[in-house]
C-alpha cells in the first residue's frame, strides 16, 4: 500500500476504464491508486494508518448493499446519491450509521456507483436526497445491526433479544462483548431481516449531531474528486464548437487549419440524436448538430478550436418528438433569433391575452369589481445561467460491447436509457460512475454533455474527456427561464383583502404554482398562466419557479400589507390562521401550521418589531417549497453608495435536521446565492446569442458583497425530514426586494435589482 498522504502526483481514483464493479474494489486496492484516497479524510490518524495496512479487498464483509465491515471494525458506508455540495456524502451515511449503532469515528464513506437495483433512485435534485432515503437508509442500518446481533447470538448461544449494541459494540449481560468487526463475516451470511426496528428521534446519537464533511480533508488538500480531475492513460480531450446563437445551425466548416495544429487527432461534425429520436423529459438538447475537436491536451484543443472556419445559418422552425409526461408528441421549436428587449415586449403582449385558468375560488371578478382599491404590480426576471464552478464535462470510454462513463451528474438513472439508445448498447453494459460535482444547482440533471462525450468516444474509439470552457458552459446553457407575473389585490373600504389574482407566464414555461399560499387563505382567488415557446433551452435551477414566485409574490404581499396598514409578518400570519381554521378549497399544497411556525420563529429571532430594531432597514419574506418552510429577515444598509445586505436572520422548518452545522452552511449559502442572483443575475440575448460568456460580464456575488452575519434557526420537531437545499433560496429574493424598499424608498419589480430602473 502506498502512503495515503503522499499522493499529490498519483493517478486520480477509479480511472481504470472497463473494470467491472466486482473487480473494481480489488483492483483499486491492489494498485493503491483509488480506494485509499477514499480514506484520507479520516481525522483519526491512527485509524487511517491502520486502514492502510489492511488487505481491504479480502476482508470486507457486506451487510446490506450499503455497509461493509472489516474484522478490524472499520465500517464503510456507501452513499447512494451524487454529491454536489449538499453534503449527502456525510448526511446519508449518518442515517445508516445511526441505526447501525456504530461509532462515527470508525466510518469511512464511499460514493456508490450507479446501480438502481442496489441503491434506489440515486437522484440528486428537488431537495429529495434526505427525504427519499430517510426510511431506506435507516432500515439498511437497522437491518445490519440486527444481523450482527443474530451473529453474536449464534456465536454465544444466547437469545438475540438479550444482546444490546452501543457505538459498534455488541454486549450480553453475561459479560460477553464483541466489536462489530468480530461478528461481521458471520453476520454477512445471515438473511437480511425484513422488519428491523428503527430508533425513536429522541434516541438518536449521530443524527442531529453535527459531523464534519466526509470529504473535507480531500477537498482542502486538492485531491482529485471532480469530473474534470478524472483521467485514464491514453485519454483524449474533446471540445465542442456549438452554434453562436440559439436558432442557428451548422452550414459548413473547414478544419484544415485546426487539423494542422499540434496534438490534434480529429475534427468532425456529429448529431447528438439521430433523426426521429424520441426525447425524454431530461434529454434536453441545445443544438443537435455540433462540431468537435479532439486532441491530446486541453490547451492544444482550445487553440485548435480557434482555427476552425465555420459557417452557420438560421435553423428555422425545428420539429422534435417528445416522450415523457403527456405521452409521445411532436413539438415545434420556433426558429426566431431572440433578443431580450423583444422577449420582454412579447411577454407583456402575452400577459394581455386570455390565459389558462389554473384555479378559481369564490367570485374574484366580483371582488375586483366591488373593490374600493385595487393594487396591481408586474414583476419580471431574466434567464439565469447556473454557472457551476466546475464547467460541464464528462469522461466516456465506449467500446464495441460496453461503455464506461464517469463524471459530474445529478441523475445517472435518467441517463442510462438514453445512453443505451444512442450507443445501441444494452443498459447492463453501461457503467456510470458519479464523481463529486463542482456545483449543480439543477444544471447537471440535463445530461446532453454525457451523451456528447459518449458519442465522441464511440466515434474516435478511445477514452475521451469532453470539456466545456466557461464560455461554452455559459452560452450553451440550460437556463432558468424568463418569467413575468402580474399580481392584483382587491381591498374593500375598510382595507380588508377581499380578492387576489395572479397571472403569470414565461419563456418557455410559466412559474405559477396555483395551489400555494395565499391560495386557501382567500375567499376570492384566481390564478392563471401562459407560456411562450422558444428555442432557448431551459431547465431546473435551484428551486425552479419558486425562485421567481417568492420574489414576486412576497414583494407584492409586502406592498399589500403597506396598503392595508398592517405589519407584513402579521398579514401573513392572519392569512395563514384563516387557511388553518377554515381553508378555502381542498387542494392547498402547504401546511399552514408549519408556515406559521417558521414566521413565529423568524419574528422572535430577528426581534421583529422590537424598539431596538426600529432604525433598521428590514425586509421580510417566507416561502414554502420542496415540502419545507423558510423565511428571512434582511437588514440592509448603504455601503459605498450601494445597497448592501449586512445581516440576515433565517428560520427554516425542514423537519428533523440530520447534520445541523452542515445544514446551517447550506442555508447560509442559499442566502448568499439569493442575494447574488437577485442583485446581479442575468443572462440576456441579442439575435439569439448569449450576451454574457464569462465572469467579466456575468456578475457573481463576491466576498465583499456577502453579508457580515447570517443567523440560521431551525424549527425543532420530529417530522420526517423535508427539503433543505432549495427551500431557503427563494424567499431571499423577496426579503431583499422588501429591504430595498425600506432602504431606498423605491419598490423593485425587475431583476436583477442592481441594474433595473426602479419604477416610481
Amino acid at each position, binding site marked *: 500500500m502506498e502512503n495515503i498522504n503522499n499522493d499529490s502526483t498519483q493517478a486520480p481514483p477509479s480511472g481504470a476504464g472497463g473494470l467491472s464493479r466486482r473487480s473494481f474494489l480489488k483492483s483499486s486496492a491492489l494498485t493503491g491508486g483509488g480506494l485509499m484516497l477514499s480514506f484520507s479524510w479520516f481525522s483519526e490518524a491512527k485509524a487511517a494508518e491502520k486502514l492502510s495496512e489492511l488487505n481491504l479487498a479480502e476482508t470486507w464483509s457486506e451487510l446490506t448493499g450499503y455497509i461493509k465491515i472489516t474484522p478490524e471494525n472499520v465500517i464503510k458506508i456507501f452513499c447512494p446519491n451524487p454529491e454536489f455540495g449538499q453534503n449527502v456524502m456525510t448526511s446519508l451515511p449518518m442515517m445508516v450509521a445511526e441505526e447501525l449503532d456504530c461509532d462515527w469515528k470508525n466510518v469511512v464513506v464511499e460514493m456508490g456507483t450507479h446501480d438502481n437495483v442496489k441503491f434506489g433512485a440515486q437522484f440528486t435534485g428537488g431537495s429529495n436526497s434526505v427525504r427519499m432515503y430517510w426510511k431506506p437508509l435507516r432500515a439498511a442500518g437497522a437491518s445490519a445491526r440486527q444481523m450482527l446481533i443474530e451473529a453474536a447470538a449464534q456465536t454465544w448461544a444466547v437469545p438475540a433479544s438479550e444482546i444490546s449494541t452501543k457505538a459498534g459494540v455488541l454486549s450480553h449481560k453475561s459479560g460477553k462483548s464483541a466489536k462489530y468487526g468480530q461478528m461481521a463475516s458471520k453476520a454477512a451470511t445471515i438473511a437480511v431481516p425484513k422488519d428491523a426496528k428503527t430508533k425513536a428521534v429522541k434516541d438518536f446519537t449521530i443524527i442531529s449531531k453535527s459531523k464534519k464533511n466526509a470529504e473535507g480533508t480531500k477537498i482542502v488538500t486538492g485531491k482529485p474528486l471532480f469530473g474534470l480531475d478524472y483521467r485514464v492513460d491514453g485519454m483524449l480531450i474533446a471540445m465542442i464548437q456549438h452554434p453562436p446563437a440559439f436558432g442557428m445551425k451548422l452550414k459548413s466548416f473547414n478544419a484544415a487549419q485546426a487539423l494542422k495544429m499540434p496534438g490534434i487527432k480529429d475534427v468532425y461534425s456529429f448529431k447528438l440524436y439521430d433523426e426521429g429520436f424520441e426525447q425524454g423529459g431530461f434529454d434536453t438538447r441545445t443544438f443537435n448538430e455540433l462540431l468537435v475537436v479532439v486532441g491530446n491536451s486541453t490547451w492544444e484543443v482550445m487553440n485548435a478550436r480557434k482555427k476552425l472556419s465555420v459557417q452557420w445559418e438560421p435553423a428555422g422552425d425545428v420539429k422534435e418528438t417528445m416522450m415523457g409526461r403527456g405521452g409521445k408528441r411532436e413539438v415545434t421549436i420556433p426558429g426566431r433569433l431572440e433578443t431580450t428587449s423583444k422577449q420582454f415586449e412579447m411577454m407583456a403582449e402575452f400577459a394581455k391575452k386570455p390565459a389558462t385558468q389554473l384555479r378559481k375560488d369564490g367570485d374574484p371578478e366580483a371582488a375586483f369589481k366591488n373593490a374600493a382599491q385595487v393594487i396591481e404590480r408586474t414583476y419580471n426576471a431574466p434567464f439565469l445561467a447556473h454557472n457551476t464552478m466546475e464547467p460541464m464535462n464528462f469522461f466516456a470510454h465506449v467500446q464495441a460491447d460496453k461503455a464506461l462513463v464517469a463524471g459530474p451528474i445529478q441523475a445517472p438513472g435518467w441517463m442510462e436509457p438514453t445512453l443505451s439508445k444512442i450507443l445501441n448498447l444494452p443498459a447492463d453494459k453501461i457503467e456510470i460512475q458519479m464523481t463529486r460535482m463542482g456545483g449543480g444547482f439543477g444544471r447537471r440533471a440535463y445530461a446532453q454533455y454525457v451523451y456528447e462525450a459518449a458519442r465522441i468516444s464511440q466515434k474516435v474509439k478511445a477514452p475521451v474527456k469532453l470539456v466545456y470552457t466557461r464560455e461554452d458552459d455559459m452560452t450553451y446553457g440550460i437556463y432558468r427561464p424568463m418569467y413575468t407575473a402580474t399580481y392584483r389585490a382587491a381591498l374593500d373600504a375598510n382595507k380588508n383583502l377581499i380578492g387576489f389574482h395572479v397571472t403569470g407566464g414565461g419563456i418557455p414555461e410559466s412559474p405559477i404554482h396555483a395551489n400555494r399560499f395565499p391560495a386557501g387563505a382567500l375567499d376570492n382567488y384566481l390564478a392563471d398562466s401562459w407560456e411562450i415557446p422558444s428555442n432557448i433551452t431551459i431547465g431546473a435551477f435551484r428551486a425552479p419557479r419558486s425562485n421567481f414566485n417568492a420574489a414576486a409574490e412576497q414583494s407584492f404581499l409586502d406592498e399589500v400589507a403597506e396598503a392595508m396598514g398592517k405589519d407584513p409578518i402579521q398579514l401573513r400570519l392572519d392569512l395563514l390562521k384563516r387557511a388553518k381554521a377554515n381553508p378555502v378549497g381542498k387542494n392547498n399544497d402547504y401546511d399552514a401550521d408549519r408556515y406559521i411556525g417558521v414566521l413565529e420563529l423568524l419574528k422572535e429571532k430577528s426581534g421583529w418589531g422590537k424598539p431596538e430594531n426600529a432604525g433598521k432597514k428590514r425586509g421580510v419574506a417566507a416561502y414554502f417549497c420542496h415540502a419545507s418552510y423558510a423565511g428571512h429577515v434582511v437588514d440592509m444598509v448603504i455601503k459605498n453608495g450601494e445597497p448592501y445586505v449586512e445581516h440576515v436572520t433565517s428560520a427554516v422548518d425542514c423537519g428533523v435536521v440530520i447534520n445541523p452545522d452542515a445544514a446551517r452552511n447550506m442555508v447560509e449559502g442559499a442566502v448568499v446565492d439569493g442575494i447574488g442572483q437577485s442583485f446581479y443575475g442575468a443572462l440576456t440575448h441579442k439575435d439569439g446569442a448569449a450576451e454574457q460568456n464569462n*465572469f467579466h460580464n456575468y456578475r457573481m456575488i463576491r466576498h465583499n458583497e456577502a453579508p457580515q452575519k447570517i443567523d440560521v434557526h431551525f424549527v425543532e420537531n420530529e417530522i420526517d425530514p423535508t427539503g433543505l437545499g432549495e427551500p431557503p433560496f427563494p424567499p431571499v429574493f423577496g426579503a431583499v426586494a422588501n429591504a430595498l424598499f425600506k432602504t431606498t424608498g423605491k419598490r423593485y419589480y425587475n431583476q436583477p435589482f442592481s441594474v433595473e430602473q426602479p419604477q416610481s
Partner: protein
Amino acid sequence: MAKYNLKINGKTRAVDVDPSTPILWVLRDHLNMPGTKFGCGMAMCGACTVHLDGNAVRSCSMPVSAVGKMAITTIEGLSENAAHPVQKAWLEHDVAQCGYCQGGQIMSAAALLKSNPNPTDEDIDAAMSGNICRCGTYLRIKEAIKTAAKN
C-alpha cells in the same frame, strides 16, 4: 514545444510543452496535478490560484514561459497532511460545500496571511474578492481566515 524545469512543491519537474501553455494546464494535463482547478480561463474566478514565490497568481492566465526560476506551490504542496493553519481552519469551520473553488480560496488566503498575518475584514475582502464561491461559503471562509490568523 519547449523544455522547462519547473520547481513545483519543492521538486523539479521537467515538461516539454508549448511556451504559451498556462501553468494551470501544465499542472493538470502534463503533470497530473489536478488540485488546481479550471473555472474561467481568464483570471476572473480564482479557482486556479497557485503561489509563485509565495504570491497568489491565477495559473490559468500565466504562461509556463513566464515562470522562470520562480517556485510554484499548489494546493497539493501547501502542507503535508492538511497541516497548514489555513487548511486546519477550513476543516474546523467545515467551510466547503461543493468544494471546487476551495483549493483556490485556500491558496489566496494562505498568501494573504503570509503578507498580512492579522488582516481586517476589509483586508480579507480585498484579497479574497477575486475568488468566487458559487455555493456562497464566503462567511465561513472569512471566519476560517480569522481562525488561521490566530494560529
